[in-house]
């Protein structure tokens, strides 16, 4: 009987503890941040080891077996490089002009800071969350709030940084919201995560005009992401609710097949400093 009562008491205390942690997420994160760091520091070497082993096996296949189309692919890539070099030469003068104007008007660089390349070594396991584990942490200069990108576009931001690994919240996470602007018209809106690698454009004023195929970039007004990072393309128009338009968006980065990502170590944002955010 005594034993039974003690078990119930332990259960009550444990549940109360978990409930309190969940109820006060900001304080919980601040006080219990060491728990996340400890768990990530213990598990990261194993995840990294598995990643290395899988890459080793995949490397044998890619380096010896899957080279049958290499010559044709090589020629196509050479042509693409030539086209891109011409494009780059044209863009270079535009960049120099923009830099001169920025210096003239004393404007800060919209994306200041270094890029750190990281490998994805883990992925969130549940349906309701959209996070990744990457193999770079505070020892590599990463901090909470750092933007994570691929050459194609925005991936998300670091929500917890351990010593040798970090947790990245994808833009498709239900708790994620990114302030965006349409590339051409500069109409403002929010790209909200929907789970299952889907995102949606929301809070666009009913008077703002846009169409399928329009590109979205970060506006920098949320104080989280630097301005000008590609976010996605409008793929379908949605209904108008409460004088606000919605649309389905195809993310610029392929969120389902991320292997390597780039992290902006210092994210300076025009119109407000990027502050570390709690989850």
């Amino acid at each position: 009987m005594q034993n039974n009562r003690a078990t119930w008491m332990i259960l009550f205390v444990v549940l109360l503890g978990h409930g309190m942690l969940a109820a006060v997420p900001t304080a919980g994160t601040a006080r219990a941040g060491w728990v996340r760091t400890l768990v990530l520091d213990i598990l990261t070497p194993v995840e990294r080891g598995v990643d290395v082993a899988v890459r080793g096996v995949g490397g044998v296949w890619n380096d010896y077996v899957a080279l049958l189309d290499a010559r044709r692919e090589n020629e196509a890539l050479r042509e693409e490089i030539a086209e891109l070099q011409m494009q780059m030469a044209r863009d270079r003068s535009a960049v120099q002009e923009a830099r001169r104007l920025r210096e003239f008007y004393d404007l800060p660089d919209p994306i200041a800071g270094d890029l750190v390349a990281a490998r994805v070594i883990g992925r969130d396991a549940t349906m309701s969350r959209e996070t990744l584990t990457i193999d770079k942490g505070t020892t590599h200069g990463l901090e909470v709030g750092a933007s994570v990108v691929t050459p194609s576009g925005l991936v998300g931001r670091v929500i917890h940084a351990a010593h040798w690994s970090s947790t990245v919240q994808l833009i498709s996470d239900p708790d994620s919201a990114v302030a965006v602007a349409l590339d051409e018209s500069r109409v403002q809106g929010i790209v909200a995560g929907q789970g299952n690698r889907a995102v949606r454009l929301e809070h666009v004023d009913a008077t703002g005009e846009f169409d399928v195929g329009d590109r979205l970039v970060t506006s920098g007004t949320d104080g989280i992401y630097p301005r000008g990072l590609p976010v996605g393309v409008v793929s379908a128009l949605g209904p108008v609710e409460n004088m606000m338009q919605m649309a389905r968006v195809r993310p610029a980065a392929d969120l389902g097949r991320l292997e390597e990502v780039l992290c902006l170590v210092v994210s300076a944002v025009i119109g407000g400093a990027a502050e570390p955010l709690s989850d």
Partner: protein
Amino acid sequence: MNRPVPPRADRWRFLKPAGTLLGVVLAQGILTRYFQLFAYFDLPLVYCVYHGFTRASRGAAIAVGSTLGVLQDSLYGTALGTNGFAKTVICFVAASTGSRLDVDQWVTRVLALWLATFSDVMLKFILGVATRPDVLSSYPVTPGAWVLSAACNVVAGMILFGYRERSADEAA
């Protein structure tokens, strides 16, 4: 007065369960990294039901459910306490009912795994309503995804129970 020194095997007896719990959470993360279908599985939840039914110690069930939940929350960036709360309740209930039900019947196991999946979602939902109503509007899990997740968990659970029985038969 000297304390009796436990035998070497006893001193390290906590390593096996600790390694198992870490392995379950790691397996979930690593498998989901390479096979997206595993996003529908919840291996820590399956292990909670398995542990509750096979060990039937309620004290241990609290520890196992709580540890698995905290590991899951820590590794995947969820608010700390969310999975800890749900997994503790489920593991405790499994251990409490395991001694009263015929858990060797496959129907019982299937129903338990199915119910555990729905309970996990509902407990997190209730905790969300109670603690963070602002997050509630973005709760993304659709009924179709629940059913698929429950089916996946049942498959994983039955494989685990089957493996245990086979090992027991071979040992006998």
